[in-house]
């Protein structure tokens, strides 16, 4: 399957929320999404949920990638709630890192589109994010068209 190419390119926010500072994963993912032609907004770790929502709005992102290696995934449902409350429910959210098997369902129920655990292939992540971004862009465009009418 070929990569969905968007114009302008998919905008992806790669960040970490919570208390953990292990950022090797988010740096690597940010770099290869950029190399795949996406526009990546990268932040250091330790972002607050309001800060991520603000950034997502200001940067008009299509997808948010949350890296969680030490239990910070537990507050991802609060992020998706906050995104919806801010009118950003259409933004796709994916999580990468360590999410215990029995805690995955909570994230998926909260609206997380995919969880990439250890062993996830680079191309698998790129493809998923690209397709998700294309889908989000369609929703955005439809909404804009509706407003314009």
């Amino acid at each position, binding site marked *: 399957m070929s990569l969905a190419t968007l114009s302008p390119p998919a905008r992806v926010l790669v960040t970490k929320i919570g208390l953990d500072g292990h950022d090797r994963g988010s740096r690597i993912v940010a770099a290869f999404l950029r190399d795949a032609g996406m526009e990546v907004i990268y932040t250091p770790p330790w972002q607050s949920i309001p800060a991520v929502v603000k950034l997502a709005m200001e940067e008009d992102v299509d997808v948010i990638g949350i890296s969680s290696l030490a*239990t910070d995934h537990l507050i991802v449902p609060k992020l998706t709630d906050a995104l919806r409350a801010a009118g950003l429910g259409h933004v796709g959210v994916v999580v990468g890192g360590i999410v215990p098997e029995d805690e995955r369902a909570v994230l998926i129920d909260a609206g997380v589109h995919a969880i990439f655990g250890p062993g996830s292939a680079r191309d698998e992540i790129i493809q998923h994010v690209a397709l998700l971004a294309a889908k989000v862009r369609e929703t955005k465009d439809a909404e804009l068209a509706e407003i314009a009418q």
Partner: protein
Amino acid sequence: MSKEAVQLSLPGFEQAHGRWRAEYGRQIGTDRVIRNRSQIEIKPLYTPRDWNGESFLDDLGFPGQFPYTRGIYPTMHRGRTWTQRQLIGLGTPEDYNKRVRVILDAGATAISLLPCNSGFRGVDCDEVDPVLLGTCGTVINTTDHMDRALDGVPLGNISTAMNDPSPFTLLAFTLAVAKRRGIPWTSITGTSNQSDYISHFIANHMFYRLSLAGARRVLLDHIEFCRKHVPGWNPVSVVGQHMQQAGATPVETMAFTLSTALQYAQDCIDRGMDIDVVLRRFTSTSRSASSRRSPNSAPAGASGRGWRANGSAPRIRARGVSSSMARRPASISPSSSRSTTSRASPCRRWPAS
């Protein structure tokens, strides 16, 4: 030691060696140069013939003697086995205590303590989402918490390691607990495992919390306090591991680790501390280099050499500290989001501004 080459009598050596050479050459070839991670060329095989006996004392020597290649103690692990110390940090002080007792019953000879990430970050617990508290370390905010965490733990007979980038408050809590229990501070032993702020600054920024100047002052206060009041405590552990994990070669790791140790030592001298006393309480952490070293170079063993050499003061030379290094301002705030407006760079790297 004789300067003449050792004449080894090895019947059958030439024949066996020749056979190996031929077999090796057939399978791998003889023209392939092998270099280790430090780009030092190594032979595919070393035998007693590679050593002429000249440099035994300089290169190898005896256990407990310079250059410490064979260990820093005369008896090494026949005299005393290594410390069995598992990393522990979870939940409440009660949860921690339960776990510590389990591992002590199972034969642990020392304990460690990892504080909650809120402590790592220097964030008040009230500011943290409660669901995260205690998930990556034990929540310890008061002396009472520490007292409960160490309930039934024979402080004074067992060493503790504080795995916190600024372990000063954890040690303070521990000493307060010792005071309550009537245990003299002179019997408290252990290590401030992550007090090497320079390693955090250059290779592990998730531990970098104070400014360089501030971290330097606090660390020196810590060393000085321990020297005076807690002589069995190791206030510094110079960490090469962070650099290794950030991509440094063994040579780079040892070079920067040693220069860091020299910097701390010089700072202690400048404060008027007796370096022969202070250096004996410097420790080091390096990992994984040993598995990659060549037979003839020993980067991991090297950290046991040199700067720990009997605390001999002449080895510690004065090094100027550049003012730019000492005055760099704090660059981390716990919840700042950076560069929310600029779109110049497709991938922003931290620090961005």
